[in-house]
């Protein structure tokens, strides 16, 4: 039973991170390899606001979320819009460069020691019993619930709102969308803002659960295979892929070897690429050359 709970929490983490990859890729066909760093930046944002608004944890959370959106939009406006129309390689490399720049800057500003934003918020991480004798941490429960809310919100947003429909249109055919009067830069900036928001929330929650340190970036990178297994341009795929990858990882760690944790997602990624490169729910497409 405890295994099932562990799988659910890990799947929620992966899914929450993945939807950032999927949003950006689906809308602008760019793979953001800086997502792990943006996630960490979101967590540091919470750390900063927690000490700024001491005694008002909800206010701090809201401010951190707003900061994350602004960071995402700023990344697009400062760097990524110059990469529109460039080759796939150039855009991916730009995100890699951004990632390493952010990593260096974060260490310079915040140092290397582990931080505990949850303690700064004035909350504690209780261990709650669930059915069948298994236990889940309060933050873990919050993670699962947040993921559910974020996915429900994103589905509704993309399905029914004006901006959501614009995002889908821009993803389907940028040229046609632009000719119908959709401002692509606005849509792309919104995609980056939303992706950084969801990634930032994931970062904040993981930091609350396990402390805020450099390994957060690795978690961000490990979530990427889940997005690809599900299909890079499908939100539903990201959800299913996360569950599949998390289940495989937890079970293999439990039954075989705990050192496997870093490679299982990537091994699954390779298997998926060999069998069905466009993922479980993705759409087949003709991919760009360098």
């Amino acid at each position: 039973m405890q295994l099932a709970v562990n799988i659910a929490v890990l799947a929620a983490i992966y899914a929450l991170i993945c939807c950032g990859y999927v949003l950006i890729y689906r809308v602008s066909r760019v793979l953001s390899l800086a997502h792990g760093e943006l996630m960490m930046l979101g967590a540091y944002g919470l750390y900063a606001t927690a000490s700024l608004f001491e005694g008002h944890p909800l206010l701090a959370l809201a401010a951190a979320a707003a900061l994350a959106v602004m960071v995402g939009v700023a990344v697009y406006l400062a760097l990524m819009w110059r990469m529109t129309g460039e080759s796939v390689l150039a855009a991916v490399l730009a995100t890699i460069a951004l990632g390493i720049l952010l990593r260096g800057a974060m260490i310079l500003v915040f140092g290397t020691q582990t931080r505990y934003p949850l303690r700064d918020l004035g909350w504690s991480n209780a261990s709650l019993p669930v059915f069948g004798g298994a236990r889940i941490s309060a933050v873990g429960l919050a993670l699962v619930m947040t993921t559910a809310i974020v996915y429900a919100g994103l589905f509704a947003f993309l399905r029914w709102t004006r901006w959501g429909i614009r995002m889908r249109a821009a993803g389907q055919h940028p040229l046609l969308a632009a000719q119908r009067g959709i401002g692509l830069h606005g849509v792309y900036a919104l995609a980056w803002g939303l992706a950084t928001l969801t990634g930032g929330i994931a970062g904040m929650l993981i930091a609350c659960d396990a402390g805020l340190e450099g390994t957060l970036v690795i978690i961000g990178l490990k979530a990427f295979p889940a997005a690809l297994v599900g299909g890079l341009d499908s939100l539903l795929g990201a959800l299913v892929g996360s569950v599949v990858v998390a289940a495989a990882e937890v079970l293999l760690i439990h039954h075989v070897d705990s050192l496997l944790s870093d490679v299982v997602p990537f091994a699954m990624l390779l298997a998926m690429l060999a069998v069905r490169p466009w993922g479980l729910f993705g759409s087949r497409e003709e991919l760009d050359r360098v």
Partner: protein
Amino acid sequence: MSGYFRTSYSDDVALLQTRMQKVWLALFLLALCVYPFLAGPLWLDLGNQVFLGSIGAVALMLLTGYAGQISLGHAGLLAAGAFTTGILFKEFGATPWVTLPASAAVGALLGLIFGLPSLRLRGLYLAVSTLALHFIVTFLGGEYEAKRGFSTGIVIDSPIGSALGWYFALVAAAAAALLVALNLLRSRTGRAWRAIHGRETVAAALGISVQRAKLSAFVVSSTLTALAGCLFAYYRGFVSAEAFSLYLTIQYVAMIIIGGMGSILGAVLGTVFVVLFPYAIDGGMRLLGVADRLSSVVFAVNYAAFGLVMIVFLVFEPQGLVGLWRRIRNWFLLWPFKQRPLAK
């Protein structure tokens, strides 16, 4: 214009086309021979690092700059060469005459494996699959370290004792790699690589086997890289999985971006830039008087500055240092005009 016209095919493919180029090459070789006797130990080590790095950078340039196949698994390939050397040395006490060919063979095999996804995948997906292979190769290396009890790394005895000896060995190795690359590029294989980079459908219509060209690009590039990894292991005298992080891949990719895509000269220039960069940063910090305050986070300063430089090149000079050099040269060649004449 320079007034030099090629009149035959052999002129066109010659590596050295004018007498001036031969003179410059001779002067350059002379400078390379004199350099180690004038340089101090630090500069000698930097020179060695440049030659070592340029082998890997040329290999990556062949694959990405010429054949157009994205690879983010370069550190994994270096690790494969280094670990082959380390394992053979530890388990069988093998000499370099065994480990060098063995590394090359492992590199070729891995190139085939790295290359297989490229037959079905393109662009982004290829980059991702090579990234995944990087994690798997370094994981296997780490597993070996852990299982055999070399948890801190494998120590290897170097066959060459002095830095001076290493200098000439690495110059020879880098020159050999450059010659192989240049000769491949002016042969049928190299032209096939450029053709599949341009457009695969057209290349196939021209009678080029796209699969063969892709696989040969991967195999040649990984063989060279694994050899560089083997030399790296001997030069450092130490192999450990931590040395082959994603940051190493980023450094190699930065070499070919900063140097300039699609140019062997670019790969070498990029290597010089990337190797010297941390020392330039260090010097800059000392000039500003912040070196002591930031001494514990020097690596973070390097990361940030490195990312910044990569972004600047990607955004403002996608052709890299070679593009910059070409622009300056044209400016002088064409002066007082700004552009080449439209019609001859």
